[in-house]
């Protein structure tokens, strides 16, 4: 069994990260009734005897004493991290595994990447090494940050290069929150574009999410829950937006609900690696199956169901509905329409009481309406994990490597060009040491090259591809 370390950077990254740890604790508490520290828990948590002074010596077996998250928290302002450390999760975090500053990055990627990067390089390396040392077999870093700000975007992507150099064999999975079109940070296009170049070059896998989509999903849930039609039947705790006990009270803000969706995404992604099932899927299989070419590593995700009806006798039709919904554009975590674009590869990760025949039936059913690239006509990766998420009898995570990410990138480039042409706010960036105009032009080229790759694949949609003749052998 392997371990993963979560690195949460910036305000967004830390808020999502916080929700993640909350839900992870709840999930393990539900599954692990005996309070024994097992391998599943060890993937994200250390077992520590806090009575022992010093490093908090890790205990590898036996009863759970005190669980410490395998996390590193980074923010260039103190507000968010302090709130976390004073909140109900304070004991879960190792107080030494965080880096904060006071001044913040001012929504400036260059500040986050160049200034804070060089300032905190040694420190962050030390924290990361410490985290790695506490792991038996470290498999993956999960980095969470937003694209539009300064710290998450700048420092978060700076970290990618550090991780690549220092831990080349460990996967780097990035959960990146892309700015919506009504984003209120003026410089978000600059920050996002500059960050994209880093993601292109140094991330193994990126799971893009955007606030608009998350918001739409919450609205959908709210509509159902409050409409009264199904209201009383909806199980509490079963909303994909539900937080655990710790955060129940603060649920008024939409951001909490949105963050919970992303947190659930990460939990689901790792479920088959942590828990047993009849067809396991480890994290290294995600990259192997879903990344056919190194640069094309952006995966569109959708998580189902959004809520569970309290009626326990869920007929197969509802199970199948879950599969159908997973492919609809309304349920993706970014603004994307996979059904009308081209699939390079698709993974279906199922949890709970679902068997191989259910999976196959749905694949057969949905396949005709989906377009797959010519060389991967049956490009499905599947996994079955026996342990369902809290509050559900089954759930599904669909990960698609699909050209439907293209519009997001094209729009990003357009918004960037609109600002850049006017040189608006550019001086804030150029005055930072190490920043030149070439940084911007290179970033644009990088994104354009990526878009071009998707374009070429899309072009194959309508044109039948000539197959290369097979080898002929003399008998």
């Amino acid at each position, binding site marked *: 069994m392997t371990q993963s370390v979560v690195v949460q950077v910036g305000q967004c990254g830390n808020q999502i990260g916080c929700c993640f740890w909350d839900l992870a604790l709840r999930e393990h508490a539900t599954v692990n009734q005996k309070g024994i520290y097992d391998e599943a828990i060890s993937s994200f948590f250390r077992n520590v005897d806090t009575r022992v002074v010093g490093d908090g010596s890790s205990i590898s077996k036996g009863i759970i004493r005190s669980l410490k998250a395998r996390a590193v928290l980074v923010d260039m302002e103190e507000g968010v991290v302090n709130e976390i450390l004073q909140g109900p999760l304070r004991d879960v975090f190792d107080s030494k595994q965080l880096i904060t500053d006071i001044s913040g990055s001012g929504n400036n990627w260059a500040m986050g990447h160049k200034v804070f990067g060089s300032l905190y390089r040694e420190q962050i390396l030390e924290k990361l090494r410490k985290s790695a040392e506490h792991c038996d077999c470290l498999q993956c870093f999960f980095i969470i940050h937003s694209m539009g700000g300064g710290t998450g975007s700048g420092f978060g992507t700076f970290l990618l290069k550090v991780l690549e150099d220092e831990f080349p064999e460990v996967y780097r999975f990035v959960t990146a929150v892309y700015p919506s079109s009504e984003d209120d940070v003026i410089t978000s296009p600059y920050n996002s574009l500059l960050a994209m170049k880093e993601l292109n070059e140094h991330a193994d896998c990126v799971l893009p999410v955007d606030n608009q989509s998350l918001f739409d999903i919450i609205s959908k849930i709210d509509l159902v829950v409050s409409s009264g039609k199904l209201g009383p039947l909806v199980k509490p705790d079963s909303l994909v937006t539900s937080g655990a006990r710790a955060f129940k009270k603060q649920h008024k803000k939409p951001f909490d609900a949105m963050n919970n969706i992303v947190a659930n995404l990460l939990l689901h992604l790792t479920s088959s690696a942590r828990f047993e099932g*009849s067809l396991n899927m480890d994290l290294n299989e995600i990259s192997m199956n879903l990344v056919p070419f190194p640069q094309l590593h952006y995966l569109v995700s959708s998580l189902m169901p959004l809520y569970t009806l309290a009626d326990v006798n869920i007929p197969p039709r509802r199970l199948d509905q879950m599969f159908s919904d997973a492919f609809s554009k309304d349920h993706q975590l970014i603004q994307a329409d996979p059904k009308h674009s081209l699939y390079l590869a698709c993974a279906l990760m199922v949890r709970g009481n679902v068997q191989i025949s259910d999976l196959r039936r749905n694949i057969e059913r949905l396949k005709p309406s989906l377009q797959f690239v010519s060389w991967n006509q049956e490009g499905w990766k599947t996994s079955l994990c026996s342990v369902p998420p809290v509050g559900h009898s089954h759930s599904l995570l669909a990960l698609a490597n699909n050209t439907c990410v293209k519009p997001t990138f094209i729009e990003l480039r357009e918004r960037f060009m609109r600002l850049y042409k006017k040189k608006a706010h550019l001086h804030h960036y150029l005055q930072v040491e190490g920043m030149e105009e070439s940084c911007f032009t290179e970033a644009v080229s990088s994104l354009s090259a990526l878009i071009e790759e998707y374009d070429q694949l899309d072009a194959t949609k309508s044109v039948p591809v000539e197959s290369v003749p097979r080898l002929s052998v003399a008998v």
Partner: protein
Amino acid sequence: MSIVTVQLGQCGNQIGFEVFDALFTDSQCSQGLCSKRENGAYQASCRERFFREENGVPIARAVLVDMEPKVINHMLSKAAQSGQWKYGQHAYFCQKQGSGNNWAYGYSVHGPKHKESIMNLIQKEVEKCDSLNGFFIIMSMAGGTGSGLGAFLTQQLQDHYSNALKMNQIIWPYGTGEVIVQNYNSILTLSHLYRSSDALLVHENDAIHKICAKLMNIKQISFRDLNQVLAHQLGSVFQPTYSGEGSCHYRRNPLGDLMENLVPHPEFKMLGVRNIPQMSENSLPYSAFTWAGLLKHLRQMLISHAKMEEGIDWQVQPPLPGLPPLGKMSLTREQRFNTSLANLVILRGRDVQSANLEGFKDPALYTSWLGPAEAFSAWKTQRAFTGYERSAALVSNSQFFLKPLDRIVGKAWDMFASKAYIHQYTKFGIEEEDFLDSFTLLEQVVASYRNL
């Protein structure tokens, strides 16, 4: 003589458990429909072949290998909990991180790294056999450990135990993916095994799935269901059968006999299994079969490429003698009729000696260069298998896998032409030439089978 089983990866280990369970349960079965003495001899033979004893508890002669611990832990505890039989206490090898569905990782990284530890484990198990018949290696083709590490280990077994036979039980994945790179992993596995294994016993997930759906009437089919059907089929092949001396005397060299009967030529190593009847436990008491009926169906299943006894195409008939050879006949005819290289029919149950096997000795079933006298063999025992009054199994080296192999090579080739995913393999030392070598070998195999 004993067989040592090596269970590899999630698939290999999950199936392996079901196989040992099926073998054991059958050996304990009280409805043997034969004399006590007969039953005793059968049981003793099965036990010696697949189990050894430690403090009165039967221990499976198996080595469990996986690169991550979850599945092995589960199988070890399942066996221990059954109270019937167990796996050896230290007979497993585990690592922390799996092979990531990457054949190259299983073959080039895990293989060399853990070669010594795994071979040591196998050696320990071999030493506990009075005499070793050979190895039965259970693995999937689609994943990373079973396929890649499996290919590597089979080669090691070839080098270290050159006198022992090796049969690889390989699982052909569902056509619509379980793993996206399954075609790559499959062709790499097949080409390597073709060089180092003695015989490949193939089971297709799609076929077994249909059996579960149509014959067993299972509504929500799980992998456990698939594995149990598979285990049943394997049991019907590997449980003891009479040696030349007949009643109460059981064959001592099953693997050797299998190879001798079914693999007359190294170019043709792919064996398929058909088993009849196969039904849910509820239906069993209400059915009665005659040998004539069973064998008629089994024969038709053989010649018409049927995977199970439902939906058999009775139109397919062998070509009449005197007509031009198959190659010149109409295309549809050629594709529908399954030409065999060699066949083995295994009969278990009541009045087994009265069964008429003439249908299988028809020369029209076989390729021109090997007549039925050499190509066909039959094994028998009166002792019934898992409570079926009469049951028949067919192990066939024929064109069963021509189409599936052709399909997999074609799909892998298309993907290879686009270079998709290749970087994942070259990262660990499997280069494009290795792929090309595999393609070349397999196109050769396809051509050979096509021209049978």
